[in-house]
């Protein structure tokens, strides 16, 4: 009885996804090429039902399920909604990538649904066992998704991802074992209570630093950042969109919870994380200057954006958390818009090289305008949501104290570098080209085009009228 109650109060979305996962995996044994459309609709309806089911979860008061190992509150529901919404977009984007290898359609969607489900579990986990298991599930589905594309590059990328992920997981587990050794508990609340009563020791510091650094892998922060370029380039574009958004949202959410409950008692941890994120911002932005492919540029930019968020997230306060959430939401939409544009380009004659963009603004003005809005949003130029997000994030850093002003100035410099390469992408679209063969974009990727328009519209509207989203983020952050 309590099992059903727990599931219906806290894990309804995961249960729905599990059902669609099972249906997909059973179907993948029997059905062949002709039914690839069916698989897509099963996945889409699974996600849609999961989104609807979020409405029935218990929010107030905070609900703990399965011996406090699963938590359900406003924050988790909000983050889950964001994850499900972006995964819906990703499924709609991945049509072309899938039909190219249509004998494995069902497997692709199965893996994708598994990834989404485990990232929902990451968000709602309230002890280290659940967190570890769900993180590993997320990683496993990601390995195979990366290797899904044909060719050598994707296998290499997948292998790199496996190796660095294994290393980071080892570090994370090392930290967890130390923490368990000190406190004898694995539950977040219990550990929090323990450190309320007992003074943190040096081993505690080591443990939290190891845990935090181990979790940084999915965000591509510096000690574990070198996989990101190859993985973005090697994997299918919609898989890159998946890696750029969903694990990142999940890990940021769980880091926010950990910072509040467990990692907050250490003075050294914010210092280390701030330094790491500043280093990552410098590294990623400088690396992006010389890149000739759009996907590699976006890889660097995703690493840099994660660094900005981590910087603010590590200086724990309610205000900072609300800025991070706002930044996360706007970033997800801009990024998905950019990926949609890339998928359209990939399936036309333009290709994925920077120089391939030449003349786009004259042949496809509306497409180029929407793409430019997403890119300018990533760069943080005004009347896009990126401007408000950057401004809000900076205000959080200033608020955290005058000590951080030098770091802020360094971040500002890196943002200028970022503005250079983002503007370069847009400028390329306005360049004249001699070749006549790449003129009008195919109409075969309608869904991606529509998603691009929608994302750029959201970017603009939030940039002009951000107050509703700001209020929402404040409310959510206050509720954690």
């Amino acid at each position, binding site marked *: 009885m309590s099992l059903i109650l727990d599931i219906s109060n806290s894990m309804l979305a995961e249960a729905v996804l599990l059902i669609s996962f099972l249906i997909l995996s059973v179907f993948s044994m029997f059905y062949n090429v002709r039914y690839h459309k069916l698989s897509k609709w099963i996945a889409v309806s699974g996600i849609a039902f999961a989104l609807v089911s979020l409405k029935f979860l218990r929010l107030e008061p905070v609900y703990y399920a399965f011996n406090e190992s699963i938590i359900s509150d406003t924050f988790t529901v909000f983050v889950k909604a964001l994850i499900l919404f972006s995964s819906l977009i990703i499924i709609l984007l991945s049509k072309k990538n899938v039909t190219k290898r249509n004998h494995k359609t069902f497997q692709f969607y199965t893996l994708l649904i598994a990834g989404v489900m485990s990232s929902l579990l990451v968000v709602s986990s309230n002890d280290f066992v659940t967190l570890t298991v769900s993180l590993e599930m997320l990683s496993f589905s990601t390995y195979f998704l990366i290797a899904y594309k044909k060719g050598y590059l994707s296998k290499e990328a997948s292998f790199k991802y496996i190796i660095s992920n294994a290393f980071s997981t080892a570090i994370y587990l090392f930290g967890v074992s130390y923490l368990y050794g000190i406190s004898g508990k694995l539950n977040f609340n219990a550990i929090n209570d323990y450190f309320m009563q007992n003074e943190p020791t040096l081993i505690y510091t080591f443990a939290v630093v190891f845990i935090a650094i181990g979790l940084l892998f999915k965000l591509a922060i510096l000690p574990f950042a070198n996989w990101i370029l190859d993985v973005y380039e090697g994997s299918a574009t919609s898989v890159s969109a998946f890696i750029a958004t969903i694990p990142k949202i999940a890990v940021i959410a769980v880091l926010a919870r950990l910072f509040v409950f467990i990692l907050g008692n250490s003075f050294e941890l914010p210092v280390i994380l701030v330094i790491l994120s500043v280093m990552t911002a410098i590294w990623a932005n400088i690396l992006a200057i010389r890149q000739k492919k759009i996907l590699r540029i976006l890889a660097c930019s995703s690493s840099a954006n994660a660094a900005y968020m981590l910087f603010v997230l590590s200086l724990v306060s309610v205000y900072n958390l609300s800025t991070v959430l706002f930044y996360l939401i706007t970033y997800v939409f801009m990024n998905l818009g950019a990926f949609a544009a890339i998928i359209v380009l990939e399936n036309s004659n333009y290709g994925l090289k920077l120089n391939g963009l030449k003349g786009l603004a004259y042949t496809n*003005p509306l497409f180029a305008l929407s793409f430019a809005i997403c890119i*300018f949003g990533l760069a943080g*130029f*005004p*009347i896009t949501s990126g*401007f*408000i997000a950057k*401004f*809000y994030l*900076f*205000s959080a*850093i*200033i*608020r955290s104290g*005058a000590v951080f*002003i030098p770091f*802020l*100035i360094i971040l*500002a*410099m890196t*943002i*200028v570098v970022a*503005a*250079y390469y983002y*503007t*370069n992408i847009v*400028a390329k679209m*306005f360049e004249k080209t001699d070749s006549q063969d790449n003129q009008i974009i195919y109409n075969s990727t309608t869904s991606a085009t529509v998603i691009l328009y929608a994302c750029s519209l959201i970017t603009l509207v939030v940039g002009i*009228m*951000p*107050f*509703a989203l*700001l*209020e929402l983020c*404040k409310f959510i952050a206050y509720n954690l």
Partner: protein
Amino acid sequence: MDLRLLIFSPIIISILFLLPIFSGKHILVRRIAKLFAGLHFIYSLFFIIFYNVDAISNFDTEITFFGEKWLGSLGVSLIFGLDGLSLLLVLLTSFLVLISCIASKGSIKSKHSLYYALIFILETSVLGTFCAKDIFVFFLFWELELIPMYFLISLWGHDFAKKSAMKFLLYTFIGSLFMLCGFLMLYNFNYISTSELSAAIDNLNFDYESAPIYLQVVASILILLGFAVKLPIIPLHNWLPAAHVDAPTPVSMLLAGILLKMGAYGIIRFNMQLLPDAFIIIVPYLVFFAFINIVFAAFVAFVQTDIKRIVAYSSISSMGLVLLGLCSLNAVGITGAVLLMLAHGIISSGLFFSVGVIYNRTGTRNINQLGGLVLVMPRLALFTFILCLASMGVPLLISFPAEFMIFFGAFISAVYSNYYIQVVALVSIIVLVLSLIYLLRLLHKTFYGELSERWLKVGDVVTHEFIILSVISSVTVIFGIVPMSVIIYIIPAIRNITDAFGG
């Protein structure tokens, strides 16, 4: 009189221009653009009629979205208002946009609807910058101006336009991010001392407890860096000659006429008005930089062979004078500086236009290849002569009262010890007299001397060019004779600043 209409009507027109119905119809687009710019200028003239000189701020207005403030939870709202300083700069902007729309006829040959759309986005952002009464609204419009300007330079420019446009973008962007850090510090000071989230310029207050003087100095320097790039102050000036040289003529006119003024406006509005105590501390160094600006730019202009570069460096030199006027920290000097801002806006855009005409006719801007053009272009020579004289500060032309007041203000300034600013002003006057040679050299090498055979068939100014040059020249003469008509708007606007400095 609705300030919202004044600020946001250009961007609405620009969205209209981006619609596909206007593609290819370049004559229609240009006519609509000129008509709209003209109406906008006339509308802005109404503001001067209804302006109340005694009020601190006129035409205050706030934009809400369905009753919500723009960033209500952060205390930021879209409020606009005009004081004397903003009013004059708004008029200048509207006037110069009209002039450059007319001037675009000869030099813009492709993508007309996009061009005018960008010009009007630029106009909205500049007007918003000058009218904003909230720090972050100011910053929003300040940043918004970057994108249209980048495309205006890179798409219609010549030679190394893409590189120069990127240089402009990056220099300004890095400055503005420093500025943002400074603004956020101010915002935080206000929050600490009043525990209220507010970023309105008029409501901002902080005491020494919440904002120790060293932090105020840091904030002031960070904000100043943003304006120093725009002004430009010399180690940060590198973008300006490049952008000017490679931009098309109307865009250089806007760049010199309006965009450089934003830097000086920002220094007055933020560094001097909001952080007077910190400004007193950094002002001796600024005097030094002003001196470097005046002298170095004048000497660099002296050795250039590109006409546009000469005019660009003379702009930098003039901006040094503006900075010197501001540093005198008394009513006379600051009024002179504001007057010189306006004067330079008009003169330099006129000079850039005549340079553009020469380039358009001959295809070169190298003064060694030109010469004797007065024989074929007598009217252009006359107008250029007037503008050069105005730029030198000859009496009865508009920059004479300005420069006079700047130097007078510097000489009576009582802020510095050991006659520091007096010595700087004296040396600058001597250098300025010497440096007039570069303008004379420009005139001499282009219009006098022997006429090369190549330029025999070069035509004089045509109607629209004649109109532009005669309007600009008559403005320089009229306001040179009656500068008081402008000064009465400046004095009340800077009164609170001069009160703060006790001058």
